[in-house]
């Protein structure tokens, strides 16, 4: 257990701001007028002045910070654990007891912020003193440390023993009360710096930070030039009035409040509270009948409509009726380009051009001439952002034009009407009636319907394999629920035990180190089955498959 490192060379970092804050608290606690009530404490025959009781400490914290008792107790305990307060009786455990147990404030000499290294030599002297003063006073772990130190710094052991004896002799000159106090102080100090096993060390800090500044890599001319550039640009940006921005939060929060399970609960019940995962089954990424809240959420913003696979599919249907479905397909293709692998960029750009942008293309999208010109120019040197302008144009077109119409359309209104509002399910009172928690199939599993070997995947534009699909178990699960109104227990354990050999191949680009993604079997484009709804991936169904999900009876009952 390493103690926190002292600040490096270069400028010293304020390593532990909480220490100075705790010290301020402790100092204000000792204030003669406003602080905690001090009293003299009687320990056997000795009278120790300036002691406080645990109760008083807690009371004072409650008063000063307007907090509840549990928080005050917790804060007080932290103060004790960091060695700012020590118990006079039983100083072996650093706890705050909210009763008449007496405590005293640690002397600043021993405060943690002094960052003394608490060296082995000092610890050895302390243990030696303890050993000499009262034989058998050392606790187990202290004995172990003592022996270890004895072996380690054997060469200076005489010094250790001599120092210990000297300090003990000097201490004998003091009054009994002072001796006791000093012993307690020292004991607390060492309890903090060498905690007994099982007690977490409050000194632990985690890996060193800010070490790179010591190397002074950053403070160069370039760094300042960049900062100045950033500032200049920032000065020139347009800002919005605070009132406008803050109103937006109010609106956003009030709109989303009912949709926030932690704020307003969720129907039928929060799975974590009742151990029933119906809520997840009903809100699965691809479900035949979405819940009412979900359908309402599509009206909040265009982005949220597109992010929901069910919403996106319905929007695609709507666009079909308006003969502008190629817009959404184009957008999806651009998303795939932007977030796809670097190696696929040239092929994808070419495919997109052929399908959507070339004159006379099968699914030509209507972009304004300037953007089209710029895009076509950029196609000469394809990179992942070459279609950004065109994508944004189409996105805005859909958002300003098609999306509002969608929300007013009959299609959407019907969806709202058909949407499900689940009944609330209370937590079952009797434990023996609780159903076991079903495990759900991991997305990393291949769909169970694959037929043996997947065929060779990557063949240019005919590559049907979408590495992001892992469809099977989820859709089957949703179907099962839909038919039987209970999560099918077979999916819990069976898929796990099936363990059919998971053929995880790379994307066939020759590299053995490819990120292993499951490849789908090559399926003819006219197959309806290939329209497996997308799950946890925002990029929608394959944009170049001309067959449309509306023919898939999965979507409509």
């Amino acid at each position, binding site marked *: 257990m390493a103690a926190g490192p002292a600040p490096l060379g270069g400028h010293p970092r304020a390593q532990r701001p909480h220490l100075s804050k705790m010290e301020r608290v402790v100092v204000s606690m000792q204030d003669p007028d406003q602080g905690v009530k001090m009293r003299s404490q009687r320990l056997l025959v000795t009278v120790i002045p300036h002691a406080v009781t645990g109760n008083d400490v807690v009371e004072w914290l409650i008063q000063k910070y307007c907090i509840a008792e549990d928080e005050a107790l*917790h804060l007080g305990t932290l103060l004790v654990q960091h060695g700012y307060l020590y118990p006079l009786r039983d100083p072996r455990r650093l706890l705050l007891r909210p009763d008449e147990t007496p405590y005293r404030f640690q002397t600043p000499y021993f405060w943690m912020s002094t960052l003394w290294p608490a060296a082995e030599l000092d610890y050895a002297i302390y243990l030696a003193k303890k050993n000499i003063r009262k034989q058998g006073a050392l606790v187990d772990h202290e004995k172990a440390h003592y022996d270890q130190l004895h072996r380690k710094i054997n060469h200076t052991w005489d010094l250790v023993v001599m120092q210990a004896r000297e300090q003990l002799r000097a201490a004998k000159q003091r009054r009994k009360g002072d001796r006791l106090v000093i012993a307690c102080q020292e004991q607390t100090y060492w309890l903090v710096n060498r905690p007994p096993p099982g007690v977490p060390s409050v000194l632990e800090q985690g890996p060193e930070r800010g070490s*790179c500044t010591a190397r002074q890599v950053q403070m160069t*001319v370039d760094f*300042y030039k960049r900062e100045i550039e950033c500032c200049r640009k920032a000065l020139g940006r347009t800002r*919005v009035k605070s009132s*406008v921005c803050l109103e937006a939060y109010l609106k956003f*929060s009030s709109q989303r409040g009912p949709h926030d*399970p932690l704020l307003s609960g969720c129907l039928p019940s929060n799975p974590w509270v009742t151990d029933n995962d119906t809520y997840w089954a009903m809100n699965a990424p691809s479900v035949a009948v979405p819940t009412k809240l979900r359908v309402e959420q599509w009206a909040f913003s265009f982005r949220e409509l597109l992010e929901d696979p069910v919403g996106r599919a319905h929007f695609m249907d709507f666009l079909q009726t308006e003969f502008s479905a190629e817009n959404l397909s184009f957008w999806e293709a651009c998303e795939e380009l932007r977030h796809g692998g670097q190696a696929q960029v040239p092929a994808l750009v070419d495919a997109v051009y052929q399908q959507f942008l070339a004159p006379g293309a099968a699914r030509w999208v209507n972009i304004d001439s300037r953007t089209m010109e710029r895009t076509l120019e950029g196609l000469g040197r394809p990179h992942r952002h070459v279609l950004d302008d065109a994508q944004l144009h189409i996105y805005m077109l859909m958002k300003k034009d098609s999306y509002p119409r969608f929300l007013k359309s009959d299609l959407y209104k019907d969806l709202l009407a058909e949407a499900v509002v689940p009944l609330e399910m209370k937590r079952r009172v009797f434990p023996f009636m609780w159903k076991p928690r*079903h495990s759900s199939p991991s997305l990393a599993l291949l769909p169970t319907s694959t037929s043996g070997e997947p065929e060779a995947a990557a063949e240019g534009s005919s590559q049907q394999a979408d590495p992001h699909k892992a469809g099977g178990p989820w859709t089957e699960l949703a179907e099962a629920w839909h038919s039987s109104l209970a999560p099918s227990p077979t999916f819990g354990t069976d898929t796990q035990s099936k363990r059919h050999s998971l053929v995880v191949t790379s994307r066939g680009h020759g590299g053995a180190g490819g*990120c292993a993604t499951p490849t789908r079997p090559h399926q003819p484009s006219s197959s309806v089955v290939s329209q497996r709804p997308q799950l946890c991936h925002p990029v929608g169904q394959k944009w170049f498959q001309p067959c449309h999900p509306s023919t898939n009876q999965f979507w409509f009952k």
Partner: protein
Amino acid sequence: MCDQTFLVNVFGSCDNCFKQRALRTVFKKSQQLSYCSICAEIMAADGLHENETLASLKSEAESLKGKLEEERAKLHDVELHQVAERVEALGQFVMKTRRTLKGHGNKVLCMDWCKDKRRIVSSSQDGKVIVWDSFTTNKEHAVTMPCTWVMACAYAPSGCAIACGGLDNKCSVYPLTFDKNENMAAKKKSVAMHTNYLSACSFTNSDMQILTASGDGTCALWDVESGQLLQSFHGHGADVLCLDLAPSETGNTFVSGGCDKKAMVWDMRSGQCVQAFETHESDINSVRYYPSGDAFASGSDDATCRLYDLRADREVAIYSKESIIFGASSVDFSLSGRLLFAGYNDYTINVWDVLKGSRVSILFGHENRVSTLRVSPDGTAFCSGSWDHTLRVWA
């Protein structure tokens, strides 16, 4: 006649401007060159310019920052808590630990949810990375990294892979496999290479790209398959400790926070810093976007959490209390953005009302500092990981 000393001039072509002039010998970086007198003068002036530049640039940067603060203050006409007076106060919150995940042998440093809303990946100090189904509390996968202090881990959007990294300065991607015969570590892919520890990583919208933040002061965007560096982001003056991707329509920006007390918003395409905020008093441990994408919250060692608005370009709220002394290590919003959950180094989790700025609730339970906190993707619960070796799911 008095003695006259004549200067012997060598005529020739200057090494710098190549004109036929009288030449002088100059030394540039211990290389001997012959410059004409004009070029020699210019070179001397440049040297001076170089030294002056650093100090003058620094002061220029400072003055610009001051001007920026003035500009930002001009449009600040109302405070958040004033606007929020109209909003109903939140009722009492009862949140309990619903699951406790035990299995790590050492401090839990980072965790992330899978999009299926129940699986999580968590990493710890001893190098173990575990994937759990937190609903059933079963462990599904476990990998041991070759380094300690795995401070960053992330779940891929498809649910088929995880990424993690730490003191090894790298980010590695492990595909998840259920095949008993396969060793997960065998298929490991090293994606990112930094010159200091990896503090945070996150997949972008797909499995193919990963964004990393490192103790070397930079963030970087990588292509997973080839390990190629797509873009790097320089601008932080010290270690970068956290990052978060913006939930925006164009999906092009992210925010990062560092030990230089700055939170910076970056454009992923150009690599430029778009906005910077410097109001914290200590290291920023965690940043998270508000669900609408118009703002973000940050948690810092100065025991405060702050909300920064991107359109107003300023800090709009501070969440702090005198009794909270220890730094906030991790923050996240609830789904509606009304609640801000923050895990602190004093072993507690505080729940803040984002609009009113008041603390709604304090949650006890962990026995050591809370190192990581994330709300589940559908907002039904949040999970906290702590140095007490456990993770807790609260709802």
